[in-house]
């Protein structure tokens, strides 16, 4: 019965996303504004839907349909999740996100932003009987509170300066608006999980059910980036301080995220960190575009902004696919620690193929959809080196190209590690050995998202032009970008040569099956395989000062070189930010709130004294002024 209601909810969600998609397709190319006839308190609400918002609505529909199909079967494994609560929060989150995307003034934005924050916190806390989930939800809730506070402050400040709540009227080109711009940037960065505010993200995404992590990472974090574009980019921000802060934060985030992704052993955490990396890349694009437009380099600004939007859309698709893929593994193998998985490719072929597609896309490899955004960012950076300009900016571009290529190589190693340890080799636990594809609906959802990734990769040029035209219709000065990706050429060459190689060399040959080479010792145990830790060790060693990476190994035995009796290996990673910055800060807050708590003595006499003394102080103040 309960299952049945889950299915109805999922069908309703599908219907909702299909209908908004159809609506967005029909109204494509027009700009709609709507002001409801009622007021919210004393404020009127303003909605505005342009092509840029419609692009995000398309992303919303794709991600939501996949999650709606995936959810009912996935949720069966959780006995402790209250399905009603889950679906109600999911609907609230979905609707509020849609309304955030189309809201045109600050009040409307904040209202739905808050509903979004609270309902997503409820989703994170779905399985709240576990202590780790409660902790994650609390951290997430704290982060969203701070984000909203900072954002509110920025909005109020802008209202004071411009006397308007409507985003279109906000102009950030005057020096007086630099501080509110900075506040708005900070608020949105906290919500998106930009370094150094990224700490909540791995906690929340790994504790939430995979479906909600997929939605939060695939769509919710992109909405923060869309808000950055809507408010700051379209408000013509030109403060070099804010822009360079954003740029440096983006660079650090991209590198930091991928570095920590490399050393994670939990599949969901690894993907969460890779999500941080991608948001860093998007922030780099936005900051770079702001910088170029403040230097009046319209072409570069446009290229970088298109790169940002395209990467938002593509990252939404492949990241939600990655999270749903982990959900499928979680359901059939029970755990997501890489040390307990292995050999899943044979038992779960659909999940394996879809996850490979997602990883290829996440590594930004050419025919797939992670590539266009990154490629356009590279092109924009390169163009910036080739035009007349300040030497400092050019140096920054050169260093960012350097950083981007290192980040690309690091994410490749992190995702190859995840993919190979989880899916290849032999199973490292009985649960993993008995895993299988459990549900057709889940596979359908995965295949749907994987084909979205492939198609948006193949039609990358069409996507780039439509994003360009959407930005043009949203009131930004645009120019035609003349570079285009040779996608079809790459695909044809690759498929042609692959088929030729296969049929020339491998196809008709008979093969012989034998065990993996074991140096003559006899059958290898699954424990003789590489672990996630040992795979990452050589790379992690290079960055050990940043990661605080320690690797202790102790080998005991009479003749320890040749006949070890006991081998003990321990790897430890300390997040400096968490232990050195946030922990003392939190301790300070705790101490100060404890001392403030002394005021609340619980005695009515003291409270009466407070009331009386407040009155006297107010009276005195009244007399004084």
């Amino acid at each position, binding site marked *: 019965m309960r299952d049945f209601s889950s299915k109805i909810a999922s069908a309703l969600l599908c219907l909702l996303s299909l209908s908004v998609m159809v609506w967005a397709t029909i109204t494509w190319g027009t700009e709609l504004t709507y002001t409801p006839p009622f007021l919210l308190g004393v404020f009127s609400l303003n909605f505005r839907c342009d092509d840029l918002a419609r692009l995000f609505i398309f992303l919303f529909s794709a991600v939501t349909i996949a999650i709606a199909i995936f959810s009912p079967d996935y949720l069966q494994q959780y006995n402790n999740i209250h399905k009603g609560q889950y679906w109600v929060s999911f609907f609230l989150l979905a609707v509020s996100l849609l309304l955030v995307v189309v809201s045109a003034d600050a009040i409307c934005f904040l209202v739905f932003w808050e509903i979004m924050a609270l309902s997503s916190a409820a989703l994170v806390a779905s399985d709240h009987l576990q202590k780790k989930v409660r902790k994650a939800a609390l951290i997430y809730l704290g982060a969203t509170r701070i984000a909203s506070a900072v954002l509110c402050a920025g909005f109020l400040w802008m209202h004071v300066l411009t006397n308007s709540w409507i985003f279109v009227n906000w102009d950030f080109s005057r020096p007086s608006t630099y501080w509110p711009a900075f506040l708005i940037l900070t608020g949105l960065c906290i919500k998106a999980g930009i370094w150094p505010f990224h700490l909540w993200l791995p906690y929340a995404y790994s504790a939430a059910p995979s479906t909600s992590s997929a939605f939060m990472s695939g769509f919710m974090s992109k909405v923060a980036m869309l808000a950055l574009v809507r408010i700051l980019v379209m408000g013509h921000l030109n403060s070099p301080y804010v822009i360079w802060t954003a740029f440096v934060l983006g660079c650090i985030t991209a590198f930091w995220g991928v570095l920590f992704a490399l050393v994670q052993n939990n599949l969901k955490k690894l993907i969460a960190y890779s999500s941080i990396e991608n948001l860093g890349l998007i922030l780099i694009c936005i900051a770079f575009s702001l910088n170029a437009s403040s230097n009046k380099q319209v072409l570069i600004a446009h290229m970088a902004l298109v790169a940002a939007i395209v990467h938002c859309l593509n990252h939404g698709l492949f990241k939600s696919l990655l999270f749903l893929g982990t959900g499928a593994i979680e359901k059939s193998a029970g755990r997501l620690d890489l040390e307990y998985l292995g050999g899943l490719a044979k038992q779960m072929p659909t999940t394996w193929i879809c996850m490979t597609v997602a990883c290829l896309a996440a590594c930004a490899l050419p025919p797939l959809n992670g590539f266009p955004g990154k490629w356009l960012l590279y092109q924009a950076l390169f163009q910036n080196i080739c035009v007349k300009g300040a030497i400092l900016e050019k140096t920054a571009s050169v260093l960012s190209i350097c950083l981007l290529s290192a980040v690309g*190589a690091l994410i*490749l190693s992190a995702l190859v590690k995840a993919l190979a340890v989880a899916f290849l080799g032999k199973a490292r636990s009985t649960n993993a050995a008995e895993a299988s594809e459990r549900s057709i609906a889940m596979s359908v959802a995965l295949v749907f998202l994987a084909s979205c990734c492939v198609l948006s990769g193949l039609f990358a040029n069409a996507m780039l032009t439509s994003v360009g035209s959407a930005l043009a219709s949203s009131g930004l000065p645009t120019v035609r970008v003349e570079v285009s990706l040779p996608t079809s050429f790459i695909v044809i060459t690759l498929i042609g040569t692959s088929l030729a190689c296969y049929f020339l060399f491998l196809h008709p040959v008979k093969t012989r099956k034998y065990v993996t080479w074991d140096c003559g010792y006899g059958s290898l145990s699954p424990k003789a395989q590489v672990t996630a830790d*040992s795979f990452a060790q050589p790379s992690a060693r290079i960055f050990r000062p940043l990661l605080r990476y320690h690797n202790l190994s102790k080998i005991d035995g009479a003749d320890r070189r040749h006949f070890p009796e006991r081998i003990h290996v321990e790897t430890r990673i300390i997040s400096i930010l968490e232990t050195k910055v946030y922990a003392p800060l939190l301790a300070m807050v705790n101490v100060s709130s404890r001392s403030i708590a002394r005021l609340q003595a619980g005695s009515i006499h003291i409270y009466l004294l407070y009331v009386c003394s407040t009155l006297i102080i107010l009276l005195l103040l009244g007399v004084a002024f």
Partner: protein
Amino acid sequence: MSSIATWSSYLLTVIIFPPLCLGVVRKTKARLQNRVGPAVWQPFFDLHRLTKKRETLSDTMCGVFRLSTVVGLSTTFALAWFIPWVPIKPWSPHADIFTVIYLFALERFFTLLGAMDSGSAFGAFGASRDVTLNLLVEPALCLALVSLSIIANSTDLGAIFSFSHFSTVSLVWFCAGTSIFLTSLAELGRMPVDDPTTHLELTMIHEAMTLEASARNLFLLEFTRMLKLTLFLALSAQCYLRIWAGFATLAPFQQELLVLIGVLLMAIFVGILESLVVKLQWRKVPEFVAYIVTVSLISVFVAMAGNTSL
């Protein structure tokens, strides 16, 4: 030149040159060790022998292994098709440097998966070291290519290597050529980084990764490796040749001849280097790569200073 002659010369170079390069490297090493050594065309016989053998697969493999060797070779062929590594090509498509770098990454992704498919610790540790090397080397290669693009004002490799106003920036060609050459040593696991000729206890990267491959699979892997070596050597040979300002004024077939001789000379140089240099301890490799990155950075900044239009 007629199109048939172009096609046949290109196909011959692409098929004959990679094994020949390796043969030259081996012959040079043998001569320097006072051995006669196998003939330079020995790699052809080795490859031919591999196609005759019967393939053995591990029963742990899930099928990505065979796919990976095929995709690896086809990506490298596609790259040979893209990159203007020889002056005479039947068709030169737009070879954007960033696409080229990410196509190399595509080849690597599949090679790594293939190495880990059998669940063998040898393959996996080889893969682990390979990704570590690559994350160090990738910025160097990227910056070297970017520096060339800066002087040509285009990210198209075809435009870069047909560019003719370079008299003031010959230092860029030199730095970029050196950087690409050293990158190829690290990327392909050659001497100061890894010794490709020993067996698995000593060879840490490539041999370890191909341990489970046999017969035709091994053929594909080996050929991919040789072709990659040739591509890198040809790119750096062209960079060196372009230091000489007269190179661009030569006829295409003279250029072709010079480039091919240059590649063989580079191969001899690799052989000499491998005989003289000792293998670095694994932990010292990052320092070696740091030098390559420095050369690339110098190259970029010289290019920025030397590009007169900036």
